[in-house]
């Protein structure tokens, strides 16, 4: 027996093992990417950096919407391998069972969404995704908890959530509010993750894409408890978060606040526009609410139900969403059309014949300007009749159809009968109603109507409906003597100026000289004896205005309307004031408009008694 040879068995064993191990190593390290990928999973993390939401300024660089940080406690179930429920419950001051229930709730609710493909609620809950465990903790609350979160191996961590704070308790309907994203939004847009907030209405919603900024991504090397050790690959793949540019609104927050104060205890709205730029200076919807009431999850939960069920509809943005008959302010537009069509001349006379349409007692209007001053209903009945019945067809019904279509094109050019497309969520706006031939053919039947049937449109009653924003825009259009820029809130995104659509002039098909006639009428309304808007008068500048008293059905008090602009030459402000169920336009709307103009142009009020009276009046 030769034992010497047995050494080859041992040598063979060693060499074989060596070769086996090296092949295995070569496979693992060079050819099979699985382990490398697994290492990435273990040691590297992709951290998203969410930039702070953009700040909003008013036209005078007052901060009007700023950020306030609150914290969500996030949970990743996969990492809760050794989760001590009892100690965690103690840490957050809950019962043990509550923690369990909440975890179960997350599993059952957070992941559910309505699958549009199947129409069923489906769960896409994933153990490796973070979900908010407790939402909206304040800085004080989180500082009690955060130092101990390291014990949970990265399974529970805090995440800052930007909520909004509004230094001025005004303009809630403009800013809108934010709330937590839903499952569908998370699925649709990779920007959002559970627990984040999204703009739900107002500027927050329409400028969401701008305000949220651009997320940054960091790749880091983490330890076993998910804490950062160092950046991955010397930050080679990292991208910086780009904070949102500031939004500068055309809004004058002080004027807004003043307007809200004047409108306190009244229902209605004020819309003020800078005619030259179309920037909205003020948009009061009364009653309103403090926007801070809907900031943050806790507040929304607490205050939203009350706001929604309030019979005075504080969440309803009246200037954009309410449609009212315009009343006598509509006569300004009728004057322009009649003059342009050549149906009347500036000094045309129509007698105040109360047999066709009612009127109040006033001297006979011997010119268009005086007709506006007296707001003479029969005058405009007669004038508009010439436009609607141009004698171009055999029957008066066919004739009215042709005339109304012509009239309708003017209305459309004035931005009526359709949405103006303000930079607030389009679906939250209304367009009012201007009837055309098609409209009457549908409701009254073709050939069943002529001017006499529909004559109330001449004085802004009947089917005509306008939003207060449209009324203010009409004032701006007249102030500009024939053009307007679509009213908008955002004056500038960062320093880039407004969106391109808000630079375009919409020119109306009315000759320049006709405006002088109408504006003279508006001046007379305010300054001449017998004018209906004398309450808006000022000695320091010329205010041009027009009252409206909107009939509001039987047994209901009329709405009070006033549109105006000032100064007469080179106007700085155009506005519409609408006070529901307040009576004649000259009584309530006109003085409010006067104060607003004074506040904006002079910064201080001379007639404090009048101011006090309006503030204290409850309608």
């Amino acid at each position: 027996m030769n034992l010497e040879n047995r050494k080859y068995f041992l040598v063979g064993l060693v060499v074989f093992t060596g070769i086996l191990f090296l092949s295995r190593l070569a496979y693992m390290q060079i050819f099979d990417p699985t382990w490398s990928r697994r290492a990435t999973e273990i040691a590297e993390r992709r951290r998203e950096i969410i930039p702070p939401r953009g700040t909003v300024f008013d036209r005078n660089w007052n901060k009007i919407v700023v950020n306030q940080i609150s914290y969500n406690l996030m949970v990743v179930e996969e990492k809760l391998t050794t989760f001590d429920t009892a100690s965690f419950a103690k840490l957050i001051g809950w019962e043990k069972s509550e923690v369990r229930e909440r975890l179960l709730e997350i599993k059952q609710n957070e992941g559910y969404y309505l699958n549009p493909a199947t129409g069923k609620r489906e769960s896409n809950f994933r153990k490796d995704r973070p979900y908010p465990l407790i939402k909206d903790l304040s800085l004080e609350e989180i500082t009690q908890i955060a130092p101990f979160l390291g014990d949970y191996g990265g399974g529970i961590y805090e995440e800052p959530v930007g909520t909004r704070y509004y230094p001025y308790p005004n303009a809630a309907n403009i800013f809108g509010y934010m709330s937590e994203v839903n499952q569908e939004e998370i699925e649709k847009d990779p920007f959002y993750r559970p627990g984040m907030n999204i703009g739900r209405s107002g500027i927050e919603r329409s400028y969401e894409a701008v305000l949220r900024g651009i997320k940054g991504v960091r790749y880091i090397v983490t330890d076993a408890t998910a804490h950062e050790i160092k950046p991955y690959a010397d930050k080679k793949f990292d991208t910086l978060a780009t904070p949102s540019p500031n939004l500068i609104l055309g809004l004058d927050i002080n004027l807004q606040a003043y307007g809200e104060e004047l409108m306190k205890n009244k229902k209605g709205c004020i819309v003020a526009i800078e005619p030259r730029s179309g920037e909205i200076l003020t948009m009061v919807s009364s009653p309103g609410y403090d926007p801070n009431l809907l900031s943050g999850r806790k507040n929304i939960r607490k205050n939203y139900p009350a706001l929604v069920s309030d019979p005075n509809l504080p969440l309803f943005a009246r200037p954009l969403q309410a449609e009212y008959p315009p009343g006598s302010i509509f006569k300004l537009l009728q004057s322009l059309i009649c003059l342009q069509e050549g149906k009347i001349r500036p000094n045309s006379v129509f007698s105040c014949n109360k047999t066709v349409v009612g009127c109040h007692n006033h001297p006979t209007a011997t010119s268009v300007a005086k007709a506006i001053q007296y707001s003479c209903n029969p005058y405009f009945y007669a004038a508009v009749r010439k436009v609607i019945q141009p004698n171009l067809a055999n029957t008066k019904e066919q004739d009215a159809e042709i005339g109304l279509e012509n009239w309708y094109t003017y209305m459309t050019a004035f931005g009526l009968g359709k949405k103006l497309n303000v930079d607030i969520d389009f679906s939250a706006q209304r367009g009012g109603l201007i009837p055309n031939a098609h409209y009457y053919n549908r409701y009254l039947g073709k050939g069943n109507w002529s001017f006499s049937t529909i004559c109330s449109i001449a004085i802004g009653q009947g089917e005509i409906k306008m939003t207060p924003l449209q009324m203010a825009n009409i004032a701006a259009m007249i102030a500009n003597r024939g053009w307007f820029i679509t009213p908008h809130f955002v004056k500038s995104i960062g320093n880039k100026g407004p969106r391109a659509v808000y630079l375009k002039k919409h020119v109306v098909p009315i000759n320049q000289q006709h405006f002088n006639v109408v504006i003279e009428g508006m001046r007379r309304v305010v300054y001449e004896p017998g004018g209906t808007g004398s309450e808006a008068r000022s000695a320091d500048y010329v205010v041009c205005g027009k009252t409206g008293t909107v009939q509001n059905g039987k047994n209901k008090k009329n709405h009070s309307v006033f549109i105006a602009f000032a100064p007469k030459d080179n106007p700085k402000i155009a506005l519409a004031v609408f006070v529901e169920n307040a009576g004649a336009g000259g009584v309530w709307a006109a003085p409010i408009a006067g104060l607003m103009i004074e506040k904006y142009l002079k910064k201080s009020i001379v007639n404090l008694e009048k101011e006090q009276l309006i503030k204290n009046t409850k309608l």
Partner: protein
Amino acid sequence: MRTKDRLFANLDLPLLIAVLTLMFLGVLTVYSVTYNPESPSILSMGEKYGKQLLWVGISLFVGLLMLLIDADIYRKFAEFIYLGCLVLLVIVLFMPPVHGARAWLGIGGLGIQPAEFAKIATALYLAKIIDQINLKLQNLQTVVNILVILALPGFLVALQPDAGTLLVFSSFLFVMYREGISFDPLLLRIINYFRVVRFKTTWLGTHFIPFLFFTLILCLMSLLLSNTPIHILGLELPGIQLLSLFITLLGLIFLLLLIFFGYPRYRKNHLVVLLSAYAFIIMLINSISFVFQHVAKPHQKNRIELFLGLKEDPNGDDYNRNRAMAAVGSGGIYGKGYLQASVSSMRTNHVPESETDFIFCPFSEEWGFLGSLLLLSLYVFVILRIFSIAERQRSTFFRIYAYCVGMIFFYHVAINVGMNIGLAPVIGIPLPFISYGGSSILAFTSMVFILLKLDSQRKDVLR
């Protein structure tokens, strides 16, 4: 002066240099794994790298002392060293447990593990015993004696519990094989009891160790294949049936060879051997597969499946190994660079024990495949060098001791590296000279320096 000249003239330089290189790599790796930016000096004694360096210094000093002691002393006092270690292994069982094992003598960080030294003692005593055996007159007593010498420290180590060291004791079986220790006396007694055929020697008894090894591999294969269907020629066969088929074919070939080429005189005996071997193998693989599938409890099955890679549980039972393998795999060809281990560094702590039992993974992560190739080659070189040193000894005692050292090295490297790359179960034993730990370094250094001393005196021995 003469002694000194002769000492250094006869030292085996390749082995010495290889071992010193390993020590250097060890300190380097421990430094990287446990690196603390606040005390970057390698001499900071508060950090593990400082301690490791200190232990290397102590070990080299002890090694130098060992070179100065006459080699004959180890032979003379082998029993006493062995007994001394047994006493230490008993005492250690009464020490307070550290990490669940009563393995440390002494207090805290300054403790030593007697189990590490028991390996040397057992190797020395085993060498002395086998040296005294007349190989031609082996009987039951000689085999039992050797097994008892191995079993005693093995049993004490198992009580700690330290499965790794227990496993290392089985490495001596391979040395026994090399030395011609036969299990025949044991086997013959059993076989001849039945009086069917008479054997003077059996192939099985003579080659018992390789047979055991072969059987283990067969077991592993049958476990691997028992749950894995294999597709061949459009047929889906259970893996275990395929293996049976393969072995049957192999058996038939052997049968034909036996019939046509075998010595007629031994044909009957060989036929019996072949048939019993065939029956044994078929029964073995099928029963293992059956036990695995139907008898093993779920948690046992789970363990085995994890080890075989049939199942993954990266965050549970397989946490360490999964992360270690990820670290190794992420190293790529060139590695991530020194101090750049992102998975296995102590700072990230994804791989627990990455400075001791799992130290191969940070090394491999930082130096990549090329570094691992170098390290494994160095180990293979060291082991083969020790084998060749063993073979050149005139004294049987020296040779057996040398083989023991070589096999201890082989076991440590194979199990340690194996578990880092998923080829061995997770059993905690250190990687020689690399893993952090004083006892391990001191023991391995002593082991190698005793070997160097014995080797340097090889020419003094008269055969």
